[in-house]
Structure formats: C-alpha cells, structure tokens
C-alpha cells in the first residue's frame, strides 16, 4: 500500500526475508495479516493507559480458556459428584487449588477489565460514528460474558450456585403465557437438577469460544475504523500515529503486568474474598440460604431488578439495562466525542459511574428501607442518563473548541 492510500495503511509493509515465509506468503498471506494488524497497524500517538484494557481483556480470555479447559479435565458435571469433584480439584489435583483460584478470580478480573474498558469508551465517545458496530459487538461480548460467568458459577454446585440458577432461570417465568413452559425447557425437569447442570457445563465450555469469535469481529471492526483517542478526533497524518509494535505492545504489556499484580494479590492472598461462603455448602434443593447474593459483577443489574416492585417490570428493567447500551451511538446526539471537550457530559458521566457503583453496593444489601429508595433513585438515573441526558445534551451543551489535530491537542499551539 502506498502512504497516500490511507493513513490506516500502516507504517511499513510486510517484506518477508525468510525463504519459507516468502513461499508461505504467496499461498497463505498470514504473515502479512499478522504484520499489518499487530505490527504496522497505526495507533494514535496520544493514547493513554485507559486504552490498554483491550489487550488485558484478550489476555484474560486466554487465561480463562486455558485454566477452564484444564479444570474440565478434573470436573464431573453430575449432581451427586460435581461439588466433590471441585473439592478434589482443590485438595487432590496437583496445583488444582491454583488453577481453580485463578479461574474463579480470573472471572472477576475479566469483568473488572471489561467495565473499565466500557467506561473508557463512554468517556471518550468511542461508540460514535464510525464505531457503532464495534461498540455493539462489545455489548454482545458483555452479554456472552454474563451468560458464561453465570453458568460457570452454577457448575460448583454449592448452595449459592443452586439458588442462583433457580432465581435466574425463574426470571423467564415472568414472561406472560409461556413463561413456565420456557423455564421447564431450560431446566430439562421440574426444577434445577442434573439435566440443568449438564447443559450448563456444555454451554459454559462452548461460550468462551463464541466469545473468542466475536472478539475477532470486534478487533476486525476496530482495525477498519481505527482506534479512537483521548482527543476524540481522527488522526490527520502518519505523523499523528505510531506503529502498534513496539509502542502499543510495550504499553499494553506494561499495564498487563501491573494488572497481574492485582490479580495475583487476589489469587494468593484473598482468593475467597470475592466469593460467598455459602457456596462451600453443597447444593441443597430443600433449603434456601438466608440471603442470595450474586457475584459482585452482577450486583448493579441485580439491584435494578430488585428496585422495581413488579416482577415482570423488574425483569424487563434488568434486560433493558444491558440492551440500552447497544443504542448508545444513536441516543447520544452530540457530534463531539471526547468528554474532554464536553463539560456537562463529563459531570453526567461521573454521576453515571457513581450510580453504577452505588447500584453495585445496594445489590449486596437487603432489599428494605433506605436501600430500596436509593436503588430506585440510582435506577432512575441509570435509565435517564441514556434516555434523557444523552439525547438532550447534544442539543443544549456548549462544547469546548476541538483541537485541529492530535498534534495540537498533545503539544498545544506550538504544533
């Protein structure tokens, strides 16, 4: 590709020196694909550390796949043996405790990175034209992660596993008319039981590969549109981009190491901090635990469900709270991407972060008194942010002047 073709054409083209790679390139140009995607691929030179979470997420997916495939070699998806097989992984299997703690805490780290990645996209307007499809693929990835994480949690077959499965599958009973039929179909029985555990195991093994496939689409869409950047304006020349390798790979790699320190702290020092003690009690269909609390990464959505006193409307609100993200590119009417140049949006954005974290905290509290009222206020703001704030701000907000180029935004008027 010639430099004048497109600034997305990269900084250099692939010229294999190795004879074998030359031979292969004529038959399967995979070397060129990897080179143009992960070496020469131009990244805006002003990317900050919030842009490293895509790499961290890819790394976490790899960690979950590797530990998960190994755990499946030692796990038995049968109601009488599932819980004990997990305990045998913890006590008998060589390094089984490590693999399971990495996998269990890995799910938390995966969600943590995903939420940061999403907030980054929201703050800098990464969902806006021409990155709508990229964003929607991200929402699909979140949905797949939620489904995968939920089914994985059920496999442990502790008390929380069993009752989480019961409560979540019962959400579908809210559907008028066919609800109970659907729930029986999901269970493969008259209650959560062995058929349910079997199919959850099958799907928990399948979905990560579906996630990997959608990640490929996500990265593909990213490489078509190019990365957004903190200034929220497109690069105007090759001088405003740097090649992915070494610049982005080193920066991503450094942040991955920092992230792994946090990850390792959880795995080695407080491996059960994020879990619930009741899940070390084997599943008992005859007794419901005194309180049912989902894993922390579902708590905001759980709080939204509980804040609404009507069963069907609560379920609709729960699903809408995720689905509404997909419409964000069109709900936001502002032409300016980055919150840096949107003084009002920036405030509403941080209120949204507070509402999200607040709902997470409230989801872990009993649904009574002041907690219910606060949940309702935050839930109202959660939806108002998308349905009222985003459409109206674009019409009324006075944005700051945008820099004419990325160079100017980095270097000031000198550039």
């Amino acid at each position, binding site marked *: 590709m010639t430099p004048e073709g497109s600034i997305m054409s990269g900084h250099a083209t692939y010229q294999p020196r190795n004879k074998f790679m030359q031979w292969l390139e004529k038959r399967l140009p995979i070397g060129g694909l990897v080179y143009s995607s992960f070496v020469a691929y131009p990244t805006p030179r002003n990317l900050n550390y919030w842009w490293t979470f895509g790499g961290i997420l890819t790394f976490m997916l790899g960690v979950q796949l590797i530990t998960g495939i190994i755990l499946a070699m030692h796990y038995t998806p049968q109601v009488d043996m599932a819980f004990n097989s997990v305990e045998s992984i913890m006590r008998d299997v060589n390094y089984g405790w490590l693999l399971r703690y990495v996998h269990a805490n890995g799910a938390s780290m995966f969600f943590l990175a995903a939420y940061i990645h999403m907030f980054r996209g929201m703050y800098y307007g990464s969902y806006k034209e021409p990155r709508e499809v990229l964003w929607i693929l991200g929402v699909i990835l979140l949905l797949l992660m939620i489904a995968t994480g939920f089914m994985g949690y059920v496999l442990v077959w502790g008390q929380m596993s069993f*009752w989480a499965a019961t*409560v979540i599958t019962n959400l579908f009973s809210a559907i008028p008319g066919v609800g109970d039929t659907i729930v029986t179909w999901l269970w493969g*029985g*008259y209650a959560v039981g062995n*058929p349910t555990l079997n199919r959850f195991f099958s799907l928990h093994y399948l979905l990560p590969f579906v996630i990997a496939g959608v990640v490929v689409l996500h990265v593909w869409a990213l490489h078509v549109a190019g990365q957004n950047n903190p200034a929220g304006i497109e690069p105007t020349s090759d001088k405003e981009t740097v090649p992915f390798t070494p610049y982005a790979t080193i920066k991503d790699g450094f942040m991955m190491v920092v992230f792994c320190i946090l990850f390792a702290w959880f795995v080695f020092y407080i491996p059960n901090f994020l879990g619930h003690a009741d899940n070390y009690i084997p599943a008992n269909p*005859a007794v*419901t635990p005194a309180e049912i609390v989902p894993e922390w990464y579902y708590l905001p959505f759980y709080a939204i469900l509980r804040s609404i006193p009507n*069963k069907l409307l609560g379920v609709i609100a729960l699903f809408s709270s995720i689905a509404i993200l997909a419409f964000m590119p069109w709900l936001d009417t502002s032409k300016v991407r980055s919150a840096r140049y949107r003084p009002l949006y920036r405030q509403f954005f941080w209120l949204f972060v507070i509402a999200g974290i607040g709902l997470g905290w409230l989801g872990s509290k009993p649904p009574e008194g002041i907690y219910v009222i606060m949940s309702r206020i935050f839930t109202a703001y959660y939806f108002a942010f998308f349905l009222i704030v985003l459409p109206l701000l674009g019409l009324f907000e006075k944005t700051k002047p945008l820099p004419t180029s990325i160079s100017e935004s980095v270097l000031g008027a000198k550039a």
Partner: protein
Amino acid sequence: MSSAEQHSRRDFLYIATGAVAAVGGAAALVPLIAQMNPDASTIAAGAPVEVDLGPIADGQIVKVFWRSKPIFIFHRTKKEIDEAKNVDVNSLPDPEPDAERVKSGHEQWLVVIGICTHLGCIPLAHQGEYDGWFCPCHGSQYDTSGRIRKGPAPKNLYLPPYTFLSDTKIRIGEASRAA
C-alpha cells in the same frame, strides 16, 4: 423452448428447492429443541406420590418432594384455619378465599407447592407476620392459607393437584375426580 418457458422451469425448481429446504430446516429444529424438555426418566420420576397424614401433628408443617418440588403439608390448628378464613378476600394482592385452597371436609389440611412465586426460593415455615411463611430471598410473606400478603411475589403459593384417598392419606400429582 422459448426463454419464457425456461424461466418458469427455473423459477419452479428454485421455489420448490427453497420450500423443501425451509420445511426440512424447520423439521430439523424440532429434535434440537425438544431434547431440552424433561426426558422420559424425569417424567417417570414425576409420578404421583402418596403421603400418610397420620403422623403429622396439629400445627405441624412437613415438606415432601414431588417432581423435585417441595410440597408443604400444613396440619392447621383451629386458630390458623380461622385466621385464614377471617380475612377480607378483596383486600388481598391475589384474592382467593381459603375454601378454594383446601378440599371441603378437610379444612385442617393445606397442601401447597413450597416455592415462592417471586423467583423460586423456598419460604421458611411459621415465620413472618401472618403465621404462614416468610421468604428469605426478597421478603415475601404468606398467610396460613399460603396466600401472598406482603412483598414482591405476585401470586399465592400454587396448589399441586392432589386427592384424598382416605382421611389420613393423600396422593399428590393426581387431581381429585370427585372435587
């Protein structure tokens, strides 16, 4: 052969092939979807169960299982029956008189499915403000007739099909023909 004839021959083959493929595709979905429903052994294990009521003391609630669901059998005292009866039915979230929730002549026996109608937890017996059940998950409260009185559950505790074989024996899973 004119070109118009050729067209109609092709169109016919195209539509016929498409129609067969669509019907075949839809038919292939039937086993793929149906396999997820309860299998023969699960259905067989869901056959009616007989319960001897003799050992259940006054005021006692026992839990038996039918189709993997807990069934509460409540031997109600005179006071508990009166509490269930002396309620303004229209003031209830899911209005239903006590008489419709028990078999006539057997008012002391309340038989309900012990699954909270909110999200499927098992309510705790003899707890809450109405001497019936209290659900620990989201705080639903049921009275001595298993009717929802307070909390997010939309419905009264469901009644399983059952029939009295004698004064001290019931069969759960089979509706009474006489009633």
